[in-house]
């Protein structure tokens, strides 16, 4: 408070304080304990800045940590935080399980005797903009592609033409590129006759 931002003579410029930000939760690490990812934050700090890690979490540091709060109040805070962190971890696990159990569905729909379109759903796992992906499909397969919502109100991409195999090949490669080899790509015919149901083989 009493410090003034100008050193003697008003010429020297105050050097900025270097603050480290947590690579997990983005807070200055001293506030990680109040976030939902404390365990991961600590692991990150230990790996990336051992000095600050020791300063915050070594036995000595913890023993010297002062707080004006009563022991009961301090215990209540840490119990609440632990609850919050458990909840957050459970949520992340659920989301992870959801991603891993999801699959990309390539549906071949007959429009006329000779014409087919391909509807691709389950593309959320790629975490990319659907419109951009549709554009990529369109140029890749030299055809038209658009984003629509299906009966379950989920976004899917409709591609003109009977290009199911090419789409499967492309998406399988993309999944491998992203390290998502647990995710299956399945092709089906709308008449519900299964054409192919091979899981992607992790390499």
């Amino acid at each position: 408070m009493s410090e003034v931002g100008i050193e003697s003579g008003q010429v020297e410029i105050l050097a900025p304080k270097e603050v480290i930000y947590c690579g997990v939760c983005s807070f200055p690490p001293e506030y990680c304990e109040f976030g939902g990812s404390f365990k991961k934050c600590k692991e990150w700090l230990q790996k990336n800045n051992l000095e600050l890690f020791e300063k915050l979490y070594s036995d000595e540091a913890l023993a010297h940590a002062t707080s004006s709060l009563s022991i009961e109040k301090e215990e209540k805070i840490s119990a609440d935080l632990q609850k919050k962190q458990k909840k957050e971890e459970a949520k992340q696990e659920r989301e992870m399980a959801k991603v891993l159990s999801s699959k990309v569905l390539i549906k071949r729909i007959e429009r006329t005797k000779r014409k087919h379109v391909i509807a691709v759903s389950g593309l959320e796992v790629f975490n990319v903009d659907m419109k951009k992906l549709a554009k990529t499909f369109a140029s890749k397969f030299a055809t038209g592609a658009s984003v629509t919502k299906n009966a379950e109100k989920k976004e899917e991409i409709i591609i003109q033409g009977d290009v199911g195999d090419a789409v499967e090949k492309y998406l399988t490669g993309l999944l491998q590129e992203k390290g998502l080899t647990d995710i299956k790509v399945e092709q089906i015919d709308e008449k519900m006759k299964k054409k192919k149901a091979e899981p992607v083989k992790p390499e």
Partner: protein
Amino acid sequence: MFKKFTKEDIHSRSNIKSSVQRGLKSNLIQEYPGLEAVVDVIIPKKSQLVLHKCEDKIALYSIDDNVVIYQQQDEVLPFLKIVHKYPSCFQTVQVDRGAIKFVLSGANIMCPGLTSKGAKLPQENLPKGTIVIINAEGKENALAIGKLVMSTDEIKSINKGIGIELIHYLGDGLWNLSLD
């Protein structure tokens, strides 16, 4: 102010004129005299501030897609990372450890959280309306910025109700915003 702020709240993006940029800098120095020595480091003379007009008459100003300052009505305020770099340039208060989780959830700060044993208010009185940065017991860096709803003398003597209106804090929509 930024509790539920998202990218969707930004309406437009434009470069500002250098005369407007100079005006903003002088407003900044007026509000925070301590910044005079570093204002040309925070907003270099040759830089181009980009204005992002947002919902609720909020304006963000960025350099290279990093928010530097923002404005609602006439008040110019610093982004928290700027505060972290130059903490001594601002008026500071400290909340006790018990108040941290409330501040981080976006709550206004109650007087008792500013007057308890772990808290700190400056010796000299700060008038109502002063922009203060908010530190916390046992912590080095600020976790929020707010505006005094009553003078610090009143916070001490009344010691009831809201003392500081919270404006911007770690983890709010502005903190998490990515402009690129």
